[in-house]
């Protein structure tokens, strides 16, 4: 197979698998319960992969990911209510006709992401001067600021929460009858993985990893560490906001307590389970973690004994997570054959002017 064909191999397989699942969902082979699990997996993939940018690649310790998810969830929910929900608590009537929902939905989600990018400046700017434990405290504080703020804004429901986002979803299904939530879940999860891979593997994004290994030498080697931190935090929070928007529209109901420290911890667990700085690791761990939670549902409250216990055991025997800092292609080198090689990494037949003996 030529390199040019290889470039499309994995993406086309992924798209094909997604199309098959969507088709099966459409004809009803995959019921609502399994659809919800699939969507949760997608949301968790976004959450863990995006948190991995800060906690894995950059090596900081951010514990406020749930807060940024909340911002995305609330902003996109409010937008969706204002635009499409008749009789909503904010404007009282829908601003756009129901048929527009299908077009507006991705934008609603993306605006939610953009909003949490803005809020992430709360963390990004202190991160210029602070590191490690101190930054962890700042991120926890941010998480609390966000959830408490939402709790005290009556127009968005305060602690009672916000509902009615399902209206948008049902309008979309009425216009074209497809499992829209699943489709957008897949699209955004796949995009997240692609986007993170592209940014983090460019020389620009590798500046973020350089901070993790040695911030001082990064500065000395002309990496603008402040703008790298800004990039990492806004990027990661923006994606968390997207996950939040999807989460809100999937459930149709949100309240501030869904985005507390528990949510942040859940994302942290997925990152550390998968391996810090490993994109494939965080995707795999999102799958495993979500499925595990579902499988243990019959165990009810015991679930919260079993899962932490498993975590303790994994951290004891494999502290670097499933993958460590490596990607799947590094663990199984044969998989490299599925991807086109990066030509920049192949030693060119150079004609050096003078070679040091």
């Amino acid at each position, binding site marked *: 197979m030529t390199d040019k064909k290889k470039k499309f191999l994995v993406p086309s397989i992924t798209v094909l698998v997604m199309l098959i699942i969507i088709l099966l969902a459409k004809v009803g082979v995959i019921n609502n319960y399994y659809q919800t699990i699939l969507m949760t997996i997608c949301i968790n993939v976004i959450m863990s992969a995006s948190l991995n940018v800060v906690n894995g690649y950059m090596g900081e310790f951010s514990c406020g990911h749930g807060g940024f998810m909340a911002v995305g969830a609330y902003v996109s929910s409010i937008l969706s209510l204002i635009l499409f929900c008749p009789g909503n608590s904010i404007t009282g009537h829908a601003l756009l006709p129901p048929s527009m929902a299908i077009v507006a939905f991705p934008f609603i989600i993306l605006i939610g992401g953009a909003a949490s990018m803005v809020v992430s400046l709360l963390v990004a700017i202190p991160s210029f001067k602070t590191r490690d434990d101190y930054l962890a405290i700042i991120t926890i504080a941010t998480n609390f600021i966000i959830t408490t703020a939402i709790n005290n804004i009556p127009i968005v429901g305060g602690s009672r929460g916000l509902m009615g986002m399902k209206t948008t979803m049902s309008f979309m299904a009425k216009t074209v009858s497809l499992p829209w939530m699943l489709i957008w879940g897949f699209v955004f999860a796949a995009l997240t993985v692609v986007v993170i891979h592209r940014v983090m593997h460019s020389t620009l994004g590798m500046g973020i990893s350089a901070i993790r290994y040695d911030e001082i030498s990064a500065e000395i080697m002309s990496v*603008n560490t402040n703008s790298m931190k800004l990039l990492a935090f806004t990027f990661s929070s923006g994606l968390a906001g997207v996950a939040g928007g999807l989460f809100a529209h999937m459930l149709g109901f949100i309240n501030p307590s869904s985005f507390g420290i528990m949510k942040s911890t859940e994302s942290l667990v997925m990152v550390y389970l998968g391996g810090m700085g490993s994109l494939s690791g965080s995707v795999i761990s999102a799958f495993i973690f979500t499925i595990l939670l579902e499988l243990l549902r019959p165990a009810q409250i015991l679930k919260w004994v079993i899962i932490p216990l498993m975590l303790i055991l994994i951290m004891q025997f494999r502290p670097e997570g499933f993958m460590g800092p490596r990607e799947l292609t590094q663990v199984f080198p044969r998989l490299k054959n599925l991807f086109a090689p990066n030509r920049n990494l192949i*030693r060119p037949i150079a004609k050096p002017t003078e070679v040091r003996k």
Partner: protein
Amino acid sequence: MSKETLLEIKHLTHRFGGLQALTDINVNLKKGEIAGLIGPNGAGKTTVFNLVSGFYVPSEGDIIFKGTRMNGLKPHVIASLQVGRTFQNIRLWSDMTVLENICISQHYHLGYGVGSALFKNKKYRENEKKIHDEAWQLLERFNLADSALDYPKNLPYGIQRRVEIARALSLQPELLLLDEPAAGLSTSDLSDLITYIKWIHDTFGVTIWMIEHQMQVIMSLCDSIQVVDFGKEIARGTPEDIQKNPAVIKAYLGNEEIS
């Protein structure tokens, strides 16, 4: 000598809180020379380098590089003004390949933004290719291309030193600050290092300013030497002058003869 001045430091004074680290240091580096900065441990040599590379803002005095006043500039800005440096203890990104180490140091002329990286557009591809080509070229010149895809942590110490110097040179510096390049090298490696630094100086046409404790290295490489003790300059001159200077012998070398 009528050569052009590259780096000029005037009345540099630095205090850490109440501690007077440096007092009235004056430096005048000519383009193309190899200069040495020596002194006993804790004399403030590395502080001078940290001030020049922008980690600290000097309490008093001016640092002028190619006519630009550098006080208070961020280290990455100073790096992009083409001042490279190495560290006393090797500070490579040990879990990134040698090639990545070199590529990241090209951040000052990346030529593309996040948007280009997202869409992998033409600008991105061209610039990435340029950066990698330059990195490969540099590694070939340093005879390090064989270990380009290795992690520095897996390389021998001597090679790590060379990678670090190569990384500093990937900034295409006009001024290279070497902080104890011989630290941790065995005596037999020293003559190798001397020819190595000489080779760098000649091929890259870079001005070198180095801190070193190994007299062999300093004496055989430097055109001029400055001696500091307790943050004050106590002598300056050619290697021959310094070897004879009684103040230096007293402060720095005790009563022993320089071999």
